[in-house]
């Protein structure tokens, strides 16, 4: 196994997490605009706080991590959410 592959085993790649989040966000997608790291979860996707909390729960299961509700105020974009998931995985 290369060093890089070993690295990828324990840390999640940012782009991969963003792509997974985009899949989970399909029901909230507005028109044909793609969901990217800069998509604003509340403003662009119109998600209310309950929908955001449900999304966190889904991502906790998808990535087998704990994402505390305390993080919600700090997460505005898909990229920030991906970063939160990655850090939770590292901490786990």
């Amino acid at each position, binding site marked *: 196994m290369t060093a890089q592959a070993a690295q990828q085993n324990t840390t999640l790649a940012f782009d991969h997490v963003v792509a997974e989040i985009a899949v989970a966000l399909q029901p909230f997608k507005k028109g044909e605009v793609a969901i990217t790291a800069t998509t604003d979860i509340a403003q662009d996707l119109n998600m*209310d706080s309950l929908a955001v909390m449900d999304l966190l729960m889904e991502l906790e299961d998808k990535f087998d991590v704990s994402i505390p509700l305390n993080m919600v105020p700090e997460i505005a974009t898909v990229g920030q959410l991906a970063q939160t998931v990655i850090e939770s995985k590292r901490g786990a």
Partner: protein
Amino acid sequence: MGLMDRFKAQRELHAAVKTCGADPFGVKMDQILSATEALIEGRPTILCGSNNYLGFTFDADCIEAAKQTLDECGTGTTGSRIANGSYHDHKALEQDLADFYGKQHCMVFTTGYQANLGAISTLAGPNDFLIIDADSHASIYDACKLGSATVIRFKHNDPADLDRRLGRLANEPGNKIVVVEGIYSMLGDHAPLKEFVAVSKKHNAYILVDEAHSMGVMGATGQGVVEHDGVLDQVDFITGTFSKSMGAIGGFLVSNMEDFDLLRVACRPYMFTASLPPATVASVRKSLAKLRANPGLMAKLWANVDTLYDGVEAAGFSVGKQKGPVVAVHINDPALAARAWHALLQNGVYVNLALPPATPSGTALLRCSVSAAHSTEQLQHVVAILARIGRELGILGTPAHAVAAE
């Protein structure tokens, strides 16, 4: 941006709801006639949306106890118990509740909201974890915000999901407190407490149960779901309210926790608000005494539950899965639900209208609640009116709604 501009969504939602012909969030009761009837817009109206499960708001003995204490002790305490001291009945009520639950300690709060706010925010410290049911009451969510613990949410009434989420925290050194409710206020379903207790013990977590809607309703003596499921002795904390089956206002926390009384000088929603007025405390002591002397009161409640729940279900409505005094009628379309709510009111039946996103089901709800004080005739009348309106509005028995509901 103006101060109120942030509430655009609420403004729009409220305006949309009012197009049903009335304001569901601003109903004016001109006169209260009894525990089950009020005059609204000049019409005698059956109250089928209160939480007056045992009908104690107009119990003659409770009223007498409150009146007598009003004369003896005055209208209010004008301060918190920490600053202004405890009246005899504050202490006596705490003793009554500790006895009722067979726990060593009790603290009484000014509302059930504050009991949750105080207990949950104070018990869990900055290095601890609160693991809460996804459908928790606002008071539990607000307690999490007031406190400093890390908060994790698990799927509603799902012990396997709780197990998984606690498992992910296995290497975290902090204390864990699981928070669930007995009966849930919107859909009327109740927690599988046996399973929740087992999962909590497995992970060395404490468990707190809010019996707001289940005290005086479930269990042989009315302790709630803790009694119904036989886990009273394994539950670490119980909170509850006097605003529902006790027919007054106030809240409580009971526990066997060592050093419990430290909470009285650490818990801000206890320390920095005025204590309950003595007349209220006296009426609650009387309600509790009456429940303890006559748990048969609950049999009348459950007979009434049969009348309403079975009647509404037989009429063809989609109702909450577990039978209980909260009967939630699901209506997919919020605008249709609001029209049905208004038509009920115009026909002398008051129920609660609950709309998404505030409902756990994602659908609108006509939330009905049953009291032991309802007569069978009143509840049969409610079922008949509901069924008629359901047919008139096409909620029942027409393909049109089945299509609209997709």
